[in-house]
């Protein structure tokens, strides 16, 4: 019961953040120096054309009126109409969204499985060769730009060896393998580093000694006792990684020509399509907030202390 209560409270507390997100994007696109319409039409647009378009988009009203119209629209799923595609933004997002989700979920899987595995191995073989290799691999993952991994994989495995399709999504799930690995590696690095350090800390606690005294092997103690508690900070980092996965998705989608939300943002920018840009960024951020919410809830399931403090 108390878990349900704290879950509901967390959901409610993320609503102001979401409204803040919409407001910030709104203000950046309308208030910052540089007129969105002039950007859209080019510097030499005729005054009456600018005014006509402003009126059509409701941009001649004060910004708070526009904001109110926009945010009430959001709750009914209305995100405005794309200037470039002449379709509702929500429809476009619905069409492009599944690709990004597939890519991000696969990348997250790569990141978490490899990251946790690498972290556990490094922690259990501390200061030995496996540890150094694991940590080197992780640090490299954090330091290599996503576009570099993506291009190298594309060049070697797709172009030279022809194991994978070079781009597009025609051939099904196999098209997502290279983008997901390229995208997941950097997050895997962060997850591995944190898993290692928290696991090393947890392994020094009394209950691990108890488990060992009761006859558990070292790996048994890690799997059955330590890992569960070491996972708590790791989950937070995973939640943070959702945000960087979506950032990286923009790049991988560009390199591998995948039609996802990132692609949509780039299209919106090159097509000077403000409603589409606004809608897709807000949608992506909403995904991040939702991901953090899930992590928060997982957190309270894993750690009873947090649940009680509520």
């Amino acid at each position, binding site marked *: 019961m108390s878990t349900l209560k704290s879950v509901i409270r967390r959901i409610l507390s993320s609503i*102001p*953040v*979401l409204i*803040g*997100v919409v*407001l*910030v*994007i709104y203000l*950046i*696109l309308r208030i*910052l*120096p*540089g007129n*969105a319409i002039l*950007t859209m039409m080019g510097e030499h647009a005729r005054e009456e054309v600018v005014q006509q378009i402003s009126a059509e988009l409701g941009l001649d009203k004060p910004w708070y009126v526009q904001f109110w119209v926009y945010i009430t629209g959001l709750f009914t799923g209305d995100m405005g109409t794309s200037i470039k595609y002449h379709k509702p933004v929500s429809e476009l997002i619905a069409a492009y969204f599944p690709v990004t989700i597939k890519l991000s979920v696969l990348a997250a899987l790569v990141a978490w499985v490899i990251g946790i595995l690498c972290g556990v191995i490094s922690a259990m073989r501390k200061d030995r060769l496996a540890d150094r290799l694991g940590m080197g691999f992780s*640090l*490299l993952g*954090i*330091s*290599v*730009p*996503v*576009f*570099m991994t993506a*291009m*190298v994989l*594309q*060049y070697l495995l797709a*172009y030279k060896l022809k194991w994978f399709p070079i781009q597009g999504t025609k051939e099904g799930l196999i098209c997502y393998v290279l983008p997901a690995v390229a995208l997941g590696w950097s997050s895997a690095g962060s997850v591995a580093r944190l898993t290692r*350090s928290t696991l*090393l800390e947890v392994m020094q606690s009394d209950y691990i000694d108890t488990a060992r005294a009761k006859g558990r092997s070292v790996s048994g103690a890690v799997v059955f006792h330590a890992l569960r508690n070491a996972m708590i900070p790791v989950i937070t980092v995973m939640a943070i990684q959702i*945000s*960087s996965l*979506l*950032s*990286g998705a*923009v*790049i991988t989608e*560009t*390199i591998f020509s995948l039609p996802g939300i990132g692609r949509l*943002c*780039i299209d919106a*920018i*090159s097509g000077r399509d403000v409603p589409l*840009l*606004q809608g897709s*960024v807000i949608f*992506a*951020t909403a995904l*991040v*907030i939702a991901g*953090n919410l899930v992590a928060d809830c997982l957190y309270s399931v894993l750690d009873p202390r947090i649940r009680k403090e509520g």
Partner: protein
Amino acid sequence: MALFKSKKDVLSADLASQIGESEGMGVRLRRMARKNKLAVASAVFLVLLVLAAVFVPVLSPYDAVNGDASTRLQAPSAAHWLGTDEMGRDVLTRLLYGARISLAVGVVPTMISMIIGVALGVIAGYAGGKTDYIIMRLADVMLAFPSLLLAMVIMYTLGDGVMNIFLALALVGWASVARVARSETISLKETEYVQAAKSIGVKPGRIIRRHILPNCLPALIVLFTLNIPSAILSESSLSFLGVGIKLPNSSWGLMVNMGRQFLYNAPWISLAPSAAIMLVVLSCNFLGDGLRDALDPHLNNE
């Protein structure tokens, strides 16, 4: 007054030894330099790179802007260490010219975001209450955005230009700095020497300048070195996507972007700047890790 001062000094020296800060920053840095060879090598590499970027007009016999049509798309050789690009320009020379903007983009926006973040974080932590609530909710909102998307939107409104990219990255980066500065301030606010200073009537501004900021410094220096690589990565991603640095300026991200169409016949054009980004980011991370071990007692695992 003299009496107070000496008491305060004794008090803070006592506390400092309790939290393991009895040694000066210089001593700890020197010990790190002896122990952590990787961090030293990284620092040397970064300094050499900066020097090379500054003196490239003297060092390189080639022109970065005008190419030589007879040497188009040549693979790396003794004459052209990193090959040539589609216009016959030496990739290494262009790389070093590009380093100027790429490195500046690492440092300048990070500095701006540190100043904004520290100011807001310290104010939030010290004032508490409503001020704290408002500043930190704003930080929550900024941190909810996927950073690259937010930077893209800001760049879209501001338009191209080096100054605009500085501004965009600073606006994206301040929130995480504010969180660190706030939590440092809150824990310092509870220390006895700050309480003592408060009780003898020292004004908040002076307490912040004399007691809070100097003690935040180690954590902030570490954060600074670790934020530089992420700024460099962000700039290169933005330029790679075509919403960052644009011609006639040049940065590593832009070079990768321009070279991408030749990935299959001349991979060095885009891989060389990618590798440069990787090396700089790796060095900054090594240096940051080393500094953290040396300077920040909270994060020190040993």
